[in-house]
């Protein structure tokens, strides 16, 4: 009786562990086109066995988007930017961390406090004035703050967080 019940229990535990891990991994849609962004770290949802989220442009565009106009220290004049809301993206992958490590194509990276960006409609912009952005024009993705709408974000500290040519996010 003891042996049977023990092995049954083990089986049960094993089953639940599998269920638990499966329930969070690889349930998001899979990219069909070229991957433009990977998200790793403390996230509960992913679209791969190793718990990484890979997104192509179509997937990014299917997520809740936001458009705003702003000036930046790196551009001339006012431009309209459209992109996925970072808060929505993080919710989509069920991110649980306090910090976000943002890495660019040239491997420049910076740490952004989630608490700092949470109250604002900050986007990973993929369109500038209606056009997709090439790498030479800070594309394909640019972490953009609505500086013109929220002057309190217009600081040196926030400038360094506005990474262009973004390729990866790590939730820490």
């Amino acid at each position, binding site marked *: 009786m003891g042996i049977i019940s023990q092995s049954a229990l083990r089986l049960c535990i094993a089953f639940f562990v599998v269920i638990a891990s499966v329930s969070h991994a690889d349930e998001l849609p899979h990219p069909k086109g070229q991957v433009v962004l990977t998200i790793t770290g403390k996230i509960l949802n992913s679209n791969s066995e190793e718990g990484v989220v890979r997104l192509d442009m179509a997937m990014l565009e299917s997520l809740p988007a936001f458009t705003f106009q702003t000036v930046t*220290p*790196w*551009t*001339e004049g006012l431009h309209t930017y459209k992109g996925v809301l970072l808060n929505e993206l993080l919710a989509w992958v069920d991110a649980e961390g306090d910090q976000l490590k943002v890495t660019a194509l*040239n491997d420049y990276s910076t740490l952004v406090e989630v608490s700092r960006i949470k109250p604002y409609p900050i986007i990973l912009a993929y369109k500038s004035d209606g056009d997709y952005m090439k790498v*030479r*024009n800070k594309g394909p993705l640019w972490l953009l703050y609505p500086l013109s709408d929220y002057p309190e974000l217009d600081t040196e500290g926030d400038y360094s967080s506005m990474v262009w040519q973004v390729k990866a996010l790590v939730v820490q």
Partner: protein
Amino acid sequence: MFLSLIVAVFVVSAYVTFMKHSETLRLVTASSKTTTWAASELESDMLKFLYTFELYETGNRTHDEVLLRYELLWGRVNMLKTGDETQRFRLIKDAETLLTRLLTTLNRNEQMVLDFPSLNATLAKKIHQEFASLLPSVRQANIDSFLGPQRLDDLLKVHKLQKEFGFFLIGLLLSGLAFIAIILIESTRHKMQSLHDSLTGLPNRKYFNDRLSLVEINSIKKRQKFSIHIIDLNGFKSINDTYGHAAGDQLLKEVAIRLQYCISADDMVARLGGDEFGIIQEGINDSSRAALLGDRVCKALSIPFCFNDINIYPRASIGISLYPDDANSAIDTMGNADMAMYRAKSSNYFGYNFFDSVMYEDALRLKILGNALPHAIIRNELTLYYQSIVDIQTGIITGVEALIRWEHSRYGFIAAREIISVAEQIGQTTHFNEWVLKTACTQNKQWQDEGLPFVYMSVNVSQVMFIQDDLIASVQHALAVTGLAAKYLTIEITEDSIMVEIDRAIDILGNLKRLGVSLALGDFGTGYSSLSHMKELPVQRLKINHSFVQDLNEDPKDTRFITTILQLAQSLDLNVVAEGVETEQNRLDLLELGCHFGQGYLFAIPMPALHMTALLLKQKDGMA
């Protein structure tokens, strides 16, 4: 002017300091960080591209990786060409040219890099060489961004700005200090102003009172005395009215100066208000030094003041009181000095007057009686006594004079003259007068109703009541209320009250006569009646002052005045009543001289209504 200069320095310094500081910050942060960073990133992107390119040729990198490096280099160039942040990089010598050349090169070779896998080796080498040839310029820009003239210039600017910053900071500090100084000076001045009189520059009443409290404490500690002198100019209002307010102000200033010369260093003189000055004389042992000061003040003020060739002779009344001789507190001492001053003023003599306890008693008595009189009227505590006026020959009572009596609980019997004076001081004359008139009329009407002999009731009216109050209305009211016929009422006024305002007096008397009331002129012969006015006065009776009747008691008899008055009365067709008839001899003499009526102790003393009733009853019975 000075203040606006300080404000200007402050504002400019604050503004410039802020601007210099911002500029310094901008130069220190923006130039060093972004420019150097951007320049080195450009070199790095350039090298990475060339490196990837080379590795690709040996098959160690993919075409996509070359394209990415190409794009990244392009992105760097674009970033350096636009935006505020990299503006300072573009200021580096030849930087603009370099960026343009890079952009041209990137544009020209874009298609070929895209077509890379199908390119021949020579063309690939040419592309590599073209980018590699730009490398030294990129390197130089990188060095210049760190150490170049632009950078050095910035550092020099920062240094210079710091100097200026310090300079303006000193301006800020100095103007700040000046502000503090101004505030301190202003507050001192304000304090000074609040304690001094602006016209004379003397301490004001507040300062005087403050000092008085200190002096009081000091004198208790040192067991010394101090004196307070109150100096009030006489007739200052008329000086103002006659010579103008400018002269009045000049006079006050001059008085202030003279008073300051009179006092010694420890004393204080203040302007207490209007034309009143006060002196506190400290550290004295008895009244002699106070008297000396009083003398000095009198002398100083007795010298005429000369304004615009006009000599003004000021007169002042000075009251002096000593602490603790005259009072237990400084405030009471001040009140005493005030009282002494008023006493000096009323005695109408130019000099100082020491307080004495009689003054205090007088003032206290006035205060107590003044408080009591209105109640006494309401509660009928005042009574009228009556003295008969008789026909000298027959002894028949023809009239009765009403005399006021007040038995006060503390002071006992109060004389008529004092009651009237109290009533005048507390402004109760109308009320008082109406009470007397009504009571007297009521009494006479009652005698008439009781069938007693008809007599006239003589009621005295004081000067104030006669001139200021509406006597006509009061008389009319009294007659209406009591129902007494007007002819049985006589209003008795003194010669003096009439002469104050003779025209008005004639008016009022005329109106009274029209009411049917008879009029008597009292105290005749003691005042200054003008004979020409006598005939205009509508009076029916003269009352000879008792002092003239006294002349009859002299040895030898002096009948000159009485004879003259009687002759005058006869020629004006007036009745004459002699007051103060005390002896039978007086009566016989008066009879002989032709005086028909008399009043005095020989006939009857003033008595209560009840006794007078009995007297009248006796007369009635006698007649019957």
